[in-house]
C-alpha cells in the first residue's frame, strides 16, 4: 500500500505504476458530466486553486445537510468514467490535475493525456459507496451547487486513506488493456480446445 498526500507533484505521480494500491489523503474534488463540459467550454478561473495538484473524483454523491448548514456524505461511490473521455485530457492539462478517480477505466485519449500531463487514473471499488463515504472526513466546500444540483456540483471532500488502485499510469500503461488482452487470449485457448 502506498500512501499519497494531496495536493501532489508531477514527480510523485510519475513514480506510480499500473497495479499500485494507493491510499489517498487530502482534498479531492468531485466532477461529472455537467462539470466537465463546463470546464472545457467555459474555462472558469475560480476553480483553478481548488484543482491544482489534486485529483478529480467521478462521483455524484448523495449528500445530507445538517441543521447547522454543514454537509454530510450519505453515499459516495465512483461513477462510470468513460463518459468524460472527450473532456478528460484537456481538463487535466488546463487545470494541472494530477489524477482522476472513477470506475471502468478510460480510453486512448485520456491515456495519452496522462502521459503528457503527468497524471494517473485511480480505480475505486464500484459499489462501495459506504466504505468510500466513510473515508471522507470533512466537506470543506461546494461550488455550482445551485446551478448544477447535488450530484453534478463540484464538491470538495477531505479524505483520509481513500482506497484506490492505479489502473492507468503516466507511462502509457493501462491495466485494463493488459487484462483485457490476456483474458481474450485465455478465452481463445478455451474455445479452441472445445
Amino acid at each position, binding site marked *: 500500500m502506498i500512501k499519497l498526500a494531496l495536493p501532489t507533484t508531477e514527480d510523485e505521480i510519475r513514480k506510480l505504476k499500473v*497495479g499500485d*494500491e494507493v491510499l489517498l489523503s487530502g482534498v479531492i474534488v468531485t466532477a461529472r458530466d455537467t462539470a466537465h463540459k463546463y470546464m472545457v467550454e467555459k474555462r472558469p478561473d475560480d476553480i483553478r486553486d481548488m484543482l491544482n495538484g489534486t485529483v478529480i473524483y467521478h462521483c*455524484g*454523491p*448523495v449528500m445530507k445537510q445538517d441543521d447547522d448548514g454543514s454537509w454530510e456524505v*450519505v*453515499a*459516495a*461511490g465512483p461513477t*462510470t468514467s468513460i463518459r468524460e473521455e472527450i473532456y478528460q485530457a484537456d481538463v487535466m492539462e488546463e487545470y494541472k490535475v494530477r489524477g482522476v478517480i472513477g*470506475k*471502468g*477505466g478510460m480510453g486512448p485519449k485520456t491515456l495519452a493525456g496522462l502521459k503528457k500531463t503527468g497524471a494517473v487514473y485511480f*480505480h475505486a*471499488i*464500484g*459499489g*462501495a*459507496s*459506504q*466504505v468510500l463515504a*466513510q473515508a471522507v472526513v470533512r466537506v470543506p466546500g461546494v461550488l455550482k451547487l445551485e446551478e448544477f444540483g447535488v450530484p453534478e456540483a463540484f464538491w470538495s471532500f477531505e479524505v483520509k486513506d481513500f*482506497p484506490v*488502485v492505479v*489502473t492507468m499510469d503516466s507511462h502509457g500503461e493501462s*491495466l*485494463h488493456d493488459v*487484462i*483485457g488482452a*490476456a*483474458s*481474450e487470449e*485465455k*478465452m481463445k485457448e*478455451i*474455445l479452441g480446445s*472445445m
Partner: protein
Amino acid sequence: MENLIGLDEEKLKSSFIELVRRTSSVLPDDVVAKIKEYQAKEKVGTRAASALDTIMENIKLAEDGSRPICQDTGTVIFDIYHPLGLRQSALETIIRSAVADATANHYLRPNVVDPLTGMSKFDNNGVGHPAIYLKQWDEDYLKVALVLKGGGCENVGTQYSLPNTGLKAGRDLDGIKKVCLDAVVKAQGRGCAPGVLGIGIGGDRAQGYTLSKKQLHRKLDDKNENPDLAELEEWLVEKANTLGIGPMGFGGGTTLLAVKAALMDRIPASYYVSVTYMCWAYRRRFMTVKNGNVEFD
C-alpha cells in the same frame, strides 16, 4: 379501506417499504456466503483480495446503517404472484406509493429520468418505473420478488443470435458456452465484477431477456434440475474464473460468483442466448403475505 390479502392498504404499503429497505441495505445470505467463499480463495495481499475485503466491509456498513449498499439503487423490479381475486390496479397503486416513500427515506436514490427531456422524477415514479410484473397464480398467498438492478451491470448484459460465426458458436450447448464466455470477456470488470450471470436460452428477444432476469431470483447455491443446464452453469463459473479478470477487472480468480440458466422453446428460425449480468451488489429479496402475516426472506 380495501382489505388486500388480510392486510389493510396502509399495512401492505409499509410492508413494501420494509421490503425495499431490506433489499437496498442488506445483501442476501447466499450472496454474502459466496463472496466470502471466494474471498478465502484469493491470495492475501493481492489487489483481488483487497477489493473483496472492501466489498465485505461495505456490505457490513450498509447493513448496520440501513443505507444503500450501492448508491445506484438501479431499476426497481417487482415480480408479483398473487391469488385469484386480488385487484392488480390496487396493488400497483400501493407499490408506487411505497416506492415514493422509500425514496424519501433514502433507501432509494431518485433514479428515474425522462430520456428526451432529462427531467428527473424525484419519487422514482415514472413511465414504466418501478417495473411491476403481475401474475395470478393458484396459491392462496401473495409472493413478491424485488430486485434492484444496477445500471453499470445492466449495460454489459447482451444477447446473441446463434449461430455466431466469429466465435464458431453453433446451435447447441457448446455454442451457448462459447457466447456466454465471450460475454464475460467483453464485460471485463465494468459490471462491477465479481458478478452473476442469468442466462435465458430460446424464446423471442423479449422473452429471452425476461427469462434471463428471472434467474436472478434463484439462490446462488441451488442446483439446476436440468442436468445439461447444471453442467453449463458449472462449466461457465469454472472457466470464467480462469480468465484472470477478477474483482473490478483488477485481475484475480474471482470473476463470476455463479451462473443460473434456464430455457424455453424457440421457433425454428431463431436461437437466442440472452445474458443478464448482475454485479456483486446483488440486491434481491422476497416477501410473502398469507392470512395477514408478512414474511421476508
